[in-house]
């Protein structure tokens, strides 16, 4: 048998989770206070897990690198959270959410995990409402829904454009309650530096107090990693500046497999790059594609004139515009899934039609003019004016847009200093979410016993492409409704273990090696800053392991990243000392891990000789430029085993994916 045992329960798909729960071992309430659990990360997945485990009576220690658990980047999610409630009576069901997620993921996710996610989705909404999360409501007082890409029903619950914020603050409030009751001890401004294994089991972590620099040993009977995704390997992404892979990578280095690292979601609608000092990219919600039309000039000379500032987009005649999504995908138009929309924009810009005056000319228009006129006419009719003037329609149309998208338009104007009511928005795809992550079995346990991984940090639910509004669902499902059961099953064998001591050679070894790596990087006295290397890594990743990948580019990337890794370790300069708040040191330690991960992503992308979801290999496309999957040879999860900092040495293990309940088919959005 493969080293990868997914532990998927037997039986019909709809009964697997229920049966599994009914047969798992429990830990009696009087035994729980004898058991310690560490949770790393306080986003939706971590805060919900820490709160739930605290409520159950375990001793929980929670860690976050920010100044407060409320800052975790789940807070920035805009659009919403999916749940199969069928409140709109439009034919939704657990099965349909399950099916949409598997299809959206281009048939590279595990059926049983996704079905469980759909099953508990309704409970999430119930739980959040009970906590006082202020979801959007209709005038009758009931919850409102909207629709998102890749679905034909309205199942997305939301709180204006701040759904992530409201859900995270809900989980944070539950966590705060447990901290106040003394059941969770919170370590903010702390970063996990290593996992400690004793007799093969996860038994604790080494953490660095980011204010004092102290290296601390924390023991526990189980460790939960909920540290988010690794989009910052591209330097520029919609992730927060501090988002990093280090906690997940340390676990990987200690023996946990890392699955499908090349599966990255590149979101089509973000504000384009403006210059070399830019630090991050900002998302413009997917909901804008309901009203905006995406286009570039048909003629390259028009595009060049726009970039040179000689032409304005509003001066381009209708016939000279190429609404390329409507042209290529008439059935879905501007509402194709994220991976498809992103690739189409790149294709146009690569062909010389990009409109942004930046280094790469990468940018396309998202134009609201058509919608403004049509909604303006509608509003005028509603007011009894059946022959409105152009000005009237403009005025009323802009008002309609403002009500619907006002905050996004304002955010756009702040960043770009352009008024999107008058001129089309400029947008371009940007790295947003990572579907890959630490390999976990059905119980969310990694290949290290006692080390569980939840939320974006694991790989399990989204296959090769995540649908909009599903990340929030997965984070909370894992933390509230899955992990509390599965971790208890594991911990039922720990009730006789007694307190884990940090006085052991394993803890000493881990702490010493952390101190040594910090000492090494501080005494390096190189010539370049951390950001210098991070930006170079990002450029390699974006150009060669980004939206379009090919064998030649990936091989180059693997080599270039290998050289970059050596140069980084020989030539990075980090000022200051280890015994103080040292933000450059924090960055350096994170970038060291991102470099190793970046190389593994390229290695993974090279072995996956097919195109699926967000992973597009130029060599594997059909006559119309669409992804060409190879189910015969690549219907598996690629799980990599660490073999040293040179990721080309990593060994590949395969978990075959079985589709027993959904018929595998080609995705078609034409």
């Amino acid at each position, binding site marked *: 048998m493969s080293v990868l045992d997914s532990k998927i329960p037997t039986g019909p798909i709809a009964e697997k989770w229920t049966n599994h729960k009914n047969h798992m071992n429990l830990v009696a309430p009087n035994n729980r206070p004898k058991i310690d659990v560490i949770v790393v990360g306080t986003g939706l997945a971590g805060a919900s897990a820490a709160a739930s485990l605290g409520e159950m009576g375990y001793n929980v220690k929670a860690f976050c690198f920010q100044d407060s658990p409320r800052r975790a980047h789940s807070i920035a999610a805009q659009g919403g959270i999916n749940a199969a409630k069928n409140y709109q009576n439009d034919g939704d069901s657990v099965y349909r959410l399950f099916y949409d997620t598997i299809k959206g993921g281009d048939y590279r996710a595990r059926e049983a995990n996704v079905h469980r996610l759909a099953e508990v989705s309704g409970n999430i909404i*119930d739980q959040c409402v009970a906590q006082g999360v202020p*979801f959007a409501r209709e005038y009758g007082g009931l919850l409102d829904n909207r629709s998102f890409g890749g679905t034909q029903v309205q199942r997305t619950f939301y709180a204006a454009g701040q759904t992530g914020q409201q859900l995270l603050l809900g989980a944070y409030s539950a966590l705060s309650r447990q901290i106040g009751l003394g059941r969770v001890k919170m370590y903010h401004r702390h970063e996990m530096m290593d996992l400690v294994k004793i007799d093969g089991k996860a038994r604790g972590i080494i953490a660095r107090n980011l204010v004092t620099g102290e290296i601390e040993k924390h023991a526990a009977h189980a460790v939960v990693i909920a540290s988010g995704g690794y989009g910052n390997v591209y330097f520029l992404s919609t992730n927060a500046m501090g988002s990093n892979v280090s906690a997940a990578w340390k676990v990987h280095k200690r023996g946990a497999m890392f699955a499908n690292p090349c599966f990255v979601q590149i979101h089509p609608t973000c504000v384009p790059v403006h210059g070399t000092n830019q*630090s991050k990219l900002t998302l413009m919600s997917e909901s804008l594609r309901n009203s905006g039309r995406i286009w570039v000039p048909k003629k390259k000379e028009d595009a060049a004139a726009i970039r040179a500032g000689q032409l304005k987009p509003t001066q381009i005649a209708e016939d000279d515009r190429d609404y390329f999504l409507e042209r290529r995908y008439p059935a879905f138009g501007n509402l194709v899934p994220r991976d498809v929309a992103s690739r189409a924009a790149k294709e146009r810009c690569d062909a010389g039609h990009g409109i942004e005056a930046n280094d790469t000319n990468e940018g396309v228009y998202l134009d609201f003019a058509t919608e403004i006129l049509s909604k303006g006419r509608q509003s005028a009719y509603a007011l009894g004016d059946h022959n409105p003037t152009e000005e009237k329609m403009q005025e009323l149309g802009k008002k309609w847009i403002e009500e619907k998208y006002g905050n996004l338009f304002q955010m756009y104007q702040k960043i770009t*200093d352009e008024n999107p009511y008058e001129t089309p928005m400029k947008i371009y795809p940007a790295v947003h979410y990572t579907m890959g992550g630490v390999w976990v079995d059905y119980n969310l346990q990694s290949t290290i016993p006692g080390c569980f991984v939840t939320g974006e940090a694991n790989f399990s639910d989204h296959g090769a492409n995540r649908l909009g509004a599903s990340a929030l669902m997965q984070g909370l499902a894992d933390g509230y409704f899955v992990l509390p059961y599965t971790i208890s099953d594991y911990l039922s064998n720990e009730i006789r273990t007694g307190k884990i001591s940090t006085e052991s050679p394993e803890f000493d070894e881990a702490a010493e090696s952390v101190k040594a790596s910090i000492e090494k990087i501080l005494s390096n006295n190189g010539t370049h800053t951390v950001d210098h290397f991070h930006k170079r890594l990002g450029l390699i990743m974006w150009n060669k392991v980004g939206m379009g990948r090919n064998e030649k580019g990936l091989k180059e990337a693997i080599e270039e990243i290998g050289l970059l890794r050596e140069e980084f370790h020989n030539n990075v300069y980090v000022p200051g000392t280890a015994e103080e*708040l040292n933000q450059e040191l924090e960055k350096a330690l994170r970038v060291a891990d991102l470099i190793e991960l970046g190389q593994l992503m390229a290695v993974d992308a090279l072995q996956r000789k097919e195109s699926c979801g967000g992973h597009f290999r130029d060599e594997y496309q059909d006559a119309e430029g669409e992804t060409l999957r190879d189910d015969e040879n690549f219907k598996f999860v690629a799980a990599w085993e660490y073999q040293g900092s040179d990721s080309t040495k990593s060994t590949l293990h395969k978990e075959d994916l079985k589709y027993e309940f959904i018929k595998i088919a080609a995705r078609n959005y034409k």
Partner: protein
Amino acid sequence: MAAKSINITLKIWRQKNANTKGALETYSLNEVSTDSSFLEMLDQLNEQLINDRKEPVAFDHDCREGICGMCSLYINGRAHGPETGTTTCQLHMRMFSDGDTIYVEPWRSRAFPIVKDLVVDRSAFDRIQQAGGFVSVNTSGNTMDANSLPIPKDDADKAFEAAACIGCGACVASCKNGSAMLFVGAKVSQYALLPQGKVEARDRVLNMVRQMDEEGFGNCTNTGACEIECPKGISLENIARMNREFLKAGLSSEK
């Protein structure tokens, strides 16, 4: 509008740690793109300082899209700088002119001790939240169906507006009394407006206000600076609502 470059002078508060004295230091920074955000300008300064073998300026930041609440900074005497309704991370350098001198200081409040340079310790906010900023409901798969509790849209919208607080602390930093009542009022209001929050309303407001006082925050004297400087436009009404809740709790309290 096309980006241009400006040259600026920065006066930045430098302080090694909580136990040492700090001072304003002067730095020149050239060729700052007006398209850069304020924090990108500080990144640029730090690159320059590191390349000159000097210690970079420590400042808090994370999401850089105005929602996590981690960034702070007192810029030219105003919390989050000259633009209203904007966090520092969303403030852009086009708000400044070539040749400007810009003063950058940390939040100033007794309850927010300085950690280093521009970084302060806002964990007092967390402790106030832990004292009562929640509904006591455990995780379970069996809470009642979300739609079995209809809530008037108006109440839900008002609760949402209060809940939009990002916990950055600009209200405290702007207040001459160092009061946290806008922050606490927003949290108390969110729950006071919703039926889920009614059961524990009395204990919540008493506990949160007690903790707020213990942390050393001042009292509200209705100046309204907090509302003006709040990047999320949290209304003063929330303070009034908290005061009503507090009075009500005091009248019925047996504790």
